[in-house]
């Protein structure tokens, strides 16, 4: 069963084509990575799949919900970690989590328990009552990670999950993502960090100029490194005659 399915998704911003017919499937329980250079259409894909943007053409399904027709319904089911979003300036993390819990119909006790777990896991318990505007970028990222997982969703969309985090916390987040996938959940991870994609993902889709050009399983690549595949496909290196086989 597919957690995510898209067919010929297209989106333009004026003269700029962000998606030029993106088709992909992500089975439930997979840690899928969407890899591509800057401006390849990764963030636009996430925004369409989570109902934030309306595509110009094509269809999409997320956990059997159409994000175009029911954007709020999709966001009820999934967690979202955007790349650059910060938590609201005039709330403390504790208040923000209460707010997110209210929006997601979680009871106060559940919120409190989960927040304590996450604050300990990501080492920011001492900052729970500090205004988020006064937190560092890394601490704000920890708050946003917690918010994305607060309702224990079946699927999370994550845009560059490890930015601004120190190496210890990065390892913690990676471990959590694997555990989360092992529990049967799905992760859709957007990144341009090839090492992160190779290390974490079950399967990686490489996107170029708004189209999916190949999908590969890093574990099956053998001598051929994901970096080499990426450079061939996006035309950034010694492009040899390698084909674009799917996995």
């Amino acid at each position, binding site marked *: 069963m597919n957690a995510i399915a898209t067919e010929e998704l297209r989106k333009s911003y004026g003269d700029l084509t962000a998606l030029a017919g993106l088709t992909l499937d992500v089975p439930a329980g997979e840690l899928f990575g969407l890899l591509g250079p800057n401006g390849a259409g990764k963030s636009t894909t996430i925004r369409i799949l*989570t109902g*934030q*943007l309306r595509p110009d053409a094509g269809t999409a399904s997320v956990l059997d919900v159409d994000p175009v027709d029911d954007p709020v319904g999709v966001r009820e089911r999934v967690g979202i970690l955007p790349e650059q979003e910060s938590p*609201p*300036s005039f709330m403390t993390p504790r208040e923000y989590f*209460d707010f997110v819990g209210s929006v997601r119909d979680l009871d106060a006790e559940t919120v409190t328990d989960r927040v304590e777990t996450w604050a300990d896991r990501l080492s920011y318990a001492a900052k729970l009552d500090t205004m988020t505007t*006064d937190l560092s970028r890394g601490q704000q990222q920890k708050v946003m990670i917690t918010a994305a997982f607060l309702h224990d969703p079946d699927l999370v969309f994550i845009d560059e999950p490890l930015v601004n985090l120190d190496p210890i916390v990065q390892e913690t987040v990676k471990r959590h993502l694997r555990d989360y996938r092992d529990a049967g959940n799905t992760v859709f991870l957007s990144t341009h960090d090839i090492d992160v994609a190779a290390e974490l993902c079950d399967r990686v889709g490489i996107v170029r100029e708004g189209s999916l050009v190949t999908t590969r399983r890093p574990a099956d690549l053998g001598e051929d490194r994901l970096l080499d595949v990426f450079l061939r496909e996006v035309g950034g290196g010694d492009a040899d005659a390698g084909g674009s086989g799917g996995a």
Partner: protein
Amino acid sequence: MSHDRAVLAAMFREEWRLHSRLFGGRRFAAFPVFVALVGGVTAWALASTGAGTGTVVAGVHVLVLLFGLQTGSVGLVGRDAMRGLLDDTTLVVFSAHTLPLRQRRLLGLFLLKDVVYYAVLLLLPLAVAFAPLLALAALPLLWVTLLWTFGLGLCATVAVVALATRGRPGKLLAALGVCAVVAGWLLGLPVVAATPYAVFLAPGLDTAVAAAVPPLALLALAAVTYDPEHEPPARTAANAYRAWRRRVPAWDDPVFVKTMLDVSRSAGGYWKVLLSAGVLFVVSAFLVSLAESLVGLRVLPGVAFGSILGLTAFTTYNWLTQFEDATTYATLPVDTAAVFDAKRRAFAVLGLPTGIACYAVAVLWQGASPLDALAGLALCVGLQAYLFGLTVALAGFQPNEFLFDTVLFALFTLAVAVPLVPVLVVGFVAAPLTAPWALGLVAVGLALAGIGHVLYGRAVPRWRERYRA
């Protein structure tokens, strides 16, 4: 020096692109024309109804001073605050962290850019607007003194911001300075003689020197006291979210609670809503006294104050939407309509009572008759509801930005003037108020509330689609 030129050029380009991106190049370019037209009509109308050219010229200097005070704060409030206003926009003025440029110098260039920019785009058309009232030869002098006044406001804000970087002693000194100026004015000291307005009244070397001292002194004070390394301490707060939810359990509205927290926690707290209403209260009082002196009859204070205080809806809605934009809830299962509903609730809790409280003070102070008070109350509430719906319809979540979009601003001005002007005229000439007139005005208030409701209802689905496009 070559760096300064490059930085200044980049800042000018940035300012133009920022505004033209937000509002469209042509619309923004038309703004000076609009300012000249509206300013000209307003000045002519005020002067021809007996306010006197001198009063109008003095008034425009006060307005420009306030604008300078406000402008000075924008570029200096820090990147986070700018982000709240302009999303992820990062301005050249904040590039000292990454480029070999001194923050002090960048701030100086930023202020210089603002002075030149507003001198051409705003103050020049404002001076031209006085062509019907003043001799053509006086217009260049008016432009200079308006620019000078704008600079005075700018320098005052910069000095206060610079003092604030020195902690509590600096803030105390700034407060003492403000109090001293206000006290001097109240005690009848010749404060105005040390302003550019005095130069307009009596051009000469002595008035020019007197008017040059305050901005230069403020600028010197800012240069000496500004600490570019200043970082305010991290703020902490007890959890107020759950307490707020308990206060209005029936609504079960997280976005409403967040909105109230945003307003209460941001600078000025709830007081800033009251302060905005207070400014309109003063304007109402001024207009009522002016009308009474012109018409020679007792104005209906309930109708007059109620109508003008209805405008508080715009400033309140501005505060309610100041700290977020359409993307704030993009990652959460919150529909755009729910966000607008939350704003409407916050407006009902914060905006309506503030407007009504100011109105009640005015009614008690002016001794309005029961019929007049009732009609004014209906107009106050009706106009607030109308303006709320109108602002949502025209500006969505960005009421502070659309003021610079010439087309939208013209539409807004017209849509406000159509109901407000006739009602004000009635308030100025229909005393003593009879029961049929009072009932008619109550009906107008109810109708305006209804129109506001319809405007709101039609606007929300439109904005929902636009924010997803």
